């Protein structure tokens, strides 16, 4: 069963309908092209009490922690803003005791998504961490962070992690059709696994394309329509991070956030202006253009370097040749029907 109707809606509606307080929420993007507009909208709607999953936190995780929406964090990497001087939101929250955290390695975190995506209840992971504190020090997951079992085939001790199936995934991609077929290329990271292990999926994209564009390039589709709940078209939807083929990272603006994020008061002012102070991405871009000039964004736009087209063509797309004859038997439909009748193979 699926609901392959037009799922295009605003970020506001998608977040209101598909994200609830207390959800296990996963950020699908990894290090690059993160779904900033969906994240800003979650903050604006004051959603809270999330258990947040992120492969590798950049400003996305820090903005949500600054907004106070996160109770628990499962990740492998935390953004540090200012070298030794200033950590960032996660560091402040850990020091204040307002979040609990579980640390994994990149592979072992990713493996939990892969297990969830394929319907397994756990998965074997790389056992090297058994020598480290990643294995020894447990957070809120306790014993269930890692468990060791005996391999039934080799008898060796193997390390496992539990599958995860978050309530909702938010993810930004280059393009999607209105049904939700989401196409993404570049650093694949764990983007597909994060989406596919989740119960609900909200896709934001730089552009919505016609369905036949997807049909012509299925190798770029990482999430099929039947899994997707909402499609949100947001140009510049990952700014100030980058989207391959659309725009580069805005180093200047990213640097401004990083600097602000070294202190609670300065990052609050930044959030007030750029997250809460903008009703949506259009307002955010308008404000950016008014403050710094649209030229600052234009400089970041990608030049063209298209992938070589893959030929999805075949020798023919119909059983009937140009003269209306079936290709292997060489007969027209009428001739076939006549033969069937002659042989007594047609029932009245």
């Amino acid at each position, binding site marked *: 069963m699926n609901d392959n109707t037009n799922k295009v809606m605003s970020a506001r509606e998608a977040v209101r309908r598909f994200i609830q307080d207390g959800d296990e929420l996963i950020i699908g993007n*990894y*290090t*690059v092209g993160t779904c900033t507009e969906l994240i800003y909208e979650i903050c604006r709607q004051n959603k809270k009490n999330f258990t947040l999953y992120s*492969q590798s936190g950049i400003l996305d995780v820090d903005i949500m922690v600054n907004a106070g929406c996160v109770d628990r964090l499962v990740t*492998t*990497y*935390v*953004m*540090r803003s200012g*070298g*030794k001087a200033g*950590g*960032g939101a*996660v*560091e402040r929250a*850990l*020091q204040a*005791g307002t979040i609990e955290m579980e*640390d994994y*390695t*990149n*592979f*072992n975190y*990713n*493996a939990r998504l892969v297990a969830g995506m394929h319907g397994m209840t756990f998965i074997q992971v*790389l*056992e*090297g*961490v*058994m*020598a*480290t*504190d990643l294995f020894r*020090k447990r957070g809120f997951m306790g014993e269930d962070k890692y468990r060791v079992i005996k391999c039934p085939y080799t008898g060796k001790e193997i390390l496992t992690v539990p599958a995860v199936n978050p309530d909702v995934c938010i993810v930004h991609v280059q393009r999607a059709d209105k049904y939700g077929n989401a196409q993404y*290329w*570049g*650093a*694949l*990271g*764990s*983007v*597909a*696994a994060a989406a596919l292990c989740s119960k609900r999926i909200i896709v934001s994209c730089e552009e919505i394309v016609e369905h036949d564009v997807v049909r012509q390039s299925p190798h770029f589709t990482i999430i099929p329509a039947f899994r997707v709940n909402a499609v949100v078209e947001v140009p510049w939807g990952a700014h100030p991070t*980058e989207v*391959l083929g659309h725009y*580069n*990272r805005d*180093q*200047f603006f990213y*640097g*401004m956030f990083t*600097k602000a994020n070294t202190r609670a008061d300065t990052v609050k002012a930044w959030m007030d202006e750029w997250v809460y102070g903008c009703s949506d991405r259009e307002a955010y871009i308008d404000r950016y253009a*008014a*403050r*710094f*000039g649209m*030229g*600052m964004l234009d400089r970041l736009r*990608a030049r063209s370097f298209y*992938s070589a087209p893959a030929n999805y063509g075949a020798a023919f797309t119909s059983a009937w040749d140009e003269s209306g004859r079936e290709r292997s038997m060489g007969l027209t439909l009428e001739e076939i029907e006549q033969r069937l009748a002659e042989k007594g193979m047609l029932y009245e």
Partner: protein
Amino acid sequence: MSKGYTLNELLIITCAKEIKDYQNVILGVGLPTTAGALAKALFAPHATLMMESGIIDFEPLVPLNHIADAHSCRGFSYATDLFTAFTMTYRGFVDVCFLGVGQIDKFGNLNTTCIGDYYHPTLRLPGSGGAADFIAYAKKTVLTLRGGQFVEKLDYFTSAGYLEGGDSRDQSGLFPKGSGPSMLLTTKGVFRFHPETREMYLAQIHPGVTVDDVRKDVPWDLKVSPDLTQTDRPTDEEIEFVRRFAPTESVGRSLRTELAIENALNRAKRRGKA
């Protein structure tokens, strides 16, 4: 008279020389990506440069912002996912990997997770990322330390070097035999690990640095190679490459950020915007 070089340039060039031709190389964020570009251009044209984000066989044209930066190259040969990038390491297809260090002990075990108590940290460092997985299974690992420190005991044990030294790493049964850190590069010198005790020793010092300068940073009685050498002075060709390819790396992160923000604000001011 040869060109003057910055400390960053020296580190990048020394690091690049650890990459041999035809090797499969995992590059971590920062200095190693520039080192990889240099190696590919000057020493190791057939090396396959890889990043854990699944970008395999790329040739950077500008310095990378991070390990998922496909914007810095003109395409790449194989787009895979993070899961596969690690399982290919697990299966032994990665010859050398480069990692940054927060804290390091004498046997090359690493902490990149926190300073102070794990649950209530004084400083929360980035965490493992891919580090604990890569150092476990890459055939060898090159470590770089710039802002970090040498300690007797790690505040948090993120990634396994030679555990308690000797053959304890091999004995644990958790790692491929012979794997582990092969070198540590710092702003003062190059350290290697004794083949039997696996304790790190000073193998090389950078020009202008004394052994006492190095000892100041190390809380244990540091062993020094009887054949201590000085790090090769970079050639003009190497310096020229780094400076043209990655001027921001030559300049260093803090000065670069300062100059970039200044430039952006000036640009906006000129247009009457800020």
